[in-house]
């Protein structure tokens, strides 16, 4: 096994070993739950996490692009959220946690749509 570790370390040093891409709650500030209001621009209904892109109006009237992750399609479906529930142009209010870096990236736990319906989008709430 030691030879394998050396090989893996070599791959890492050469920059060819892929890092994990999802499930990274550690990259979010879990101590501060935020609410963000915006408008959906696109949905990626796919595993391992459904991803939505949305825009939020900035202080100077500009449009700020945000991204959020949710649970995968199988879990969202059991919560009652369908692949066509969220549509581009739809106003939404998102509750969740934001990237520790301060980037406009969040892990949503609930989504409220314009009619007041609140959807659970994370198994952690």
């Amino acid at each position, binding site marked *: *096994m030691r030879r394998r570790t050396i090989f893996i370390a070599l791959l890492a040093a050469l920059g060819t070993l*892929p890092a994990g891409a999802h*499930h*990274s709650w*550690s990259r979010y500030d879990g101590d501060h739950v935020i609410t963000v209001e915006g408008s959906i621009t696109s949905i990626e209904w796919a595993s391992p996490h459904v991803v939505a892109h949305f825009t939020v109006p900035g202080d100077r009237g500009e449009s700020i692009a945000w991204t959020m992750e949710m*649970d995968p399609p*199988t879990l969202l479906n059991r919560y009652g959220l369908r692949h066509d529930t969220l549509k581009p142009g739809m106003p939404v209010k998102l509750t969740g946690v934001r990237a520790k870096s301060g980037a406009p990236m969040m892990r949503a736990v609930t989504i409220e749509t314009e009619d007041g319906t609140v959807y*659970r989008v994370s198994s952690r*709430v």
Partner: protein
Amino acid sequence: MRGTLPLTLLLACACDALAQAPPPAGFPGTPPPSPPAVIREFSADPATTDAPSRETTLRWEALNAYSLVIEPDIGVVATRGSRRVAPQVTTAYVLTATGPGGATTRAVTVTVPGTTAAASRQTAERPPAQIPRLADGSPDLSGVYSADRNVRLVAAPKVRAGAESCRVVEADERDDGSGGDCLPPGVPAATMLPFPLQIVHTPDTLVIMYEAYHQFRIAPIGRAHADYLAPAWMGHSVARWEGDTLVVDVRGFNDRTVVAGYRHTEEMTVTERYRRTAFDTIQYDAYIVDPNVFAEAVHYSGTLTLHPEWEIGEYVCSENNQDYDELFEED
């Protein structure tokens, strides 16, 4: 777009394995309240039948619920669906949706002309369902179950002296573990994720299919392990009965998964115990032994809850497994 695992992390552990984070234990901080269960639709079409025993269709859809029950006569149902019913008398059907944010109910009455409304009948009036049995008389574990995070460590792991370095340290926030690369979570981690599993049980075989990562295990009952077991993510399983408890012995693991926050060696073994304590529950226990890492067996315990209304869904982890590094970078 793809990053790299940090070199220091790879070389830090005496367990000689890739570093991987344990499955998440819950919300990282104080979670916001769970949204309430909502019944979006519960209807009967037609709401009035022509005569007794004529069919009508009940339709329903709910949100934020992990359990939906329609009374009388129907029982547990899925998040959304329809069911044809043929009441003999005017009947009030009641849908109860229960989720982490609470329960809610809604009723719909199917009127049968010329009849009197039936007295309300609830689940409690039914005799409890019996534990099903296989053809050989042993308990049948078959069904779709969810642990939904309630299988947990009984006590903190006791680590063998000298093995402290096997503790997984998130030295880099990009270290997302095997799951981050869509690789199998191992045993017993696969059971503890918030995804259901399906057990298919015959007198000579136990098959467990996990929605998470689309992994499966096949455990012959009453057989011994093969002489040689190639290291595997989910190990190799054989099962035997101890009374009404099915004991599954798992060994032949690779050393790339994580147990209780610790990396392990290929000498790890897992003993799982499955006992169907009621029609809708299995008591699950898992004991992990690795003499190179733990001073005593690590014990997980909890309940698997039957969900006859669920189907295992498609989870193609690599479908959209993006690297979000750029999205986490502040401008």
